[in-house]
């Protein structure tokens, strides 16, 4: 009976499952964060307005084409192949014997970074042109405009896409078993190799994967709602005629408290 087997498998192997799930979560979290940072940097560089002439224009063009190649190559090849090429290639060509975990994080990060660059670029483009103009009109630099005005809005807009990438990473770390990283898939394979109960063991793994991805999507949805805030401005809390910033702070805190 397969249900009895599942209970038996879980009770006997739960530390291995848990360690595998932990490793999967760890690699995908770090990979997504680093990938997001890479994407942010690449996305910002790729949206710098092109100067009309001069050395700056040439430099920017060269940088842009290098970044373009990076994105195309890493989006255009499977991560499982990238893992093999980077892990064994670095050992063979440069004599670097990478720690498996570091290699895993590196592979996930640069792979995610390629996707994230395009997501961030899309997010920046989606911000209304008027926001840029208003920021330039009060004298902000391109960088200040990005940090203070555009990126906060762009990131809010791309949160669903970032969540997508995160979920994909949780699932796709399973390909890292080809370089023997002890994530959930690798652990599951090891367990099933001992008991030969493939269906039951992998069924447990699939439940674990689903719990992880589902939790992550719920958390991100919650963050989105928090960032959006209420549609209407609460006027009753705003009848005060004269107030200092301290009053404001006290008032907003009490308003938030009431709402909860």
């Amino acid at each position, binding site marked *: 009976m397969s249900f009895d087997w599942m209970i038996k498998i879980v009770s006997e192997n739960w530390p291995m499952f848990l360690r595998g799930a932990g490793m999967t979560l760890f690699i995908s979290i770090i990979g997504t964060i680093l990938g997001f940072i890479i994407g942010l940097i690449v996305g910002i560089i790729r949206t710098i307005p092109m100067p009309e002439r001069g050395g700056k224009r040439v430099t920017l063009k060269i940088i842009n084409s290098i970044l373009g190649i990076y994105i195309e190559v890493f989006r255009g090849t499977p991560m499982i192949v990238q893992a093999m090429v980077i892990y064994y290639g670095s050992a063979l060509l440069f004599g670097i014997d990478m720690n498996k975990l570091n290699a895993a994080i590196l592979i996930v990060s640069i792979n995610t970074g390629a996707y994230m660059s395009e997501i961030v670029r899309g997010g920046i483009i989606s911000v209304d042109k*008027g926001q840029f103009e*208003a920021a330039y009109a*009060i004298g902000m*630099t391109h960088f200040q405009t990005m940090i203070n005005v555009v990126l906060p809005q762009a990131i809010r807009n791309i949160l669903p896409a970032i969540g997508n990438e995160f979920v994909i990473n949780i699932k796709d770390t399973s390909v890292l078993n080809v370089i023997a990283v002890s994530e959930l898939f690798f652990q599951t394979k090891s367990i099933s190799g001992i008991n030969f109960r493939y269906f039951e063991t992998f069924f447990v793994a699939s439940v674990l994967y689903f719990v992880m991805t589902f939790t992550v999507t719920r958390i991100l949805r919650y963050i989105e709602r928090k960032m959006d805030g209420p549609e209407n401005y609460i006027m009753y809390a705003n009848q005060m005629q004269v107030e200092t910033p301290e009053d404001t702070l006290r008032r*907003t805190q009490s308003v938030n408290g009431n709402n909860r």
Partner: protein
Amino acid sequence: MEKIIEVQHLSKSFGNHEVLRDIDFSVNKGEVVSIIGSSGSGKSTLLRCINLLEKPSSGQIIYKGENILDDKHDTRAYRTKLGMVFQQFNLFNNHDVLGNCIVGQMKVLKRSKEEAEKVAMKYLKVVGMDKYINAKPKQLSGGQKQRVAIARALSMEPDVMLFDEPTSALDPEMVGEVLKVMKELAESGLTMLVVTHEMGFAREVSDRVVFMDKGVIVEEGTPEQIFNNPTQERTREFLKRTLKI
């Protein structure tokens, strides 16, 4: 009178389409100048050229004796001296009302948070939006947004305020509240350059009216001259069309 901005032989083309042709005009300190004309006459482009959101194709813009189109001239420092109010408000959506008014002061003018908030509150009171400091732009009506946008521009304490059709995107009942604020500002002696379709405002508030058509300045003079005794046929026609309604 001291000239703050002087535009000389300014032209602007988008591709083959010439939007502005050989514009010569100036704004004096303390003066309120209205630019009127039909849509597509180049009024907004002229305003956007003045604060360099559009790069003029040729000509000169002199600000306090300096040519700002010179490559060595600091564009950003110049822009802080001009307050811009847009037709579509363009409030920073990620900041609340107070944040909109202090972010420029803190990041560009390097003022402290306390000082920036003090200045912002002063101008938010002027436009009557001091009760809404924690509201996000999406929670405000159009008229309220535009008043905050005016306060944001004023908070930078500019020499000249540029208004690009500030009431064109508003519901009719909200136009009044914005015009009232602008009228008060004009009376306080602020230098203002206003692109507008509000003939009443141009007539009552401005010291000088400029009529533009097809990328050139057709006629300029006091509101009295332009509205009562226009010398050019095109001005007469335009006024007949707009004032009839």
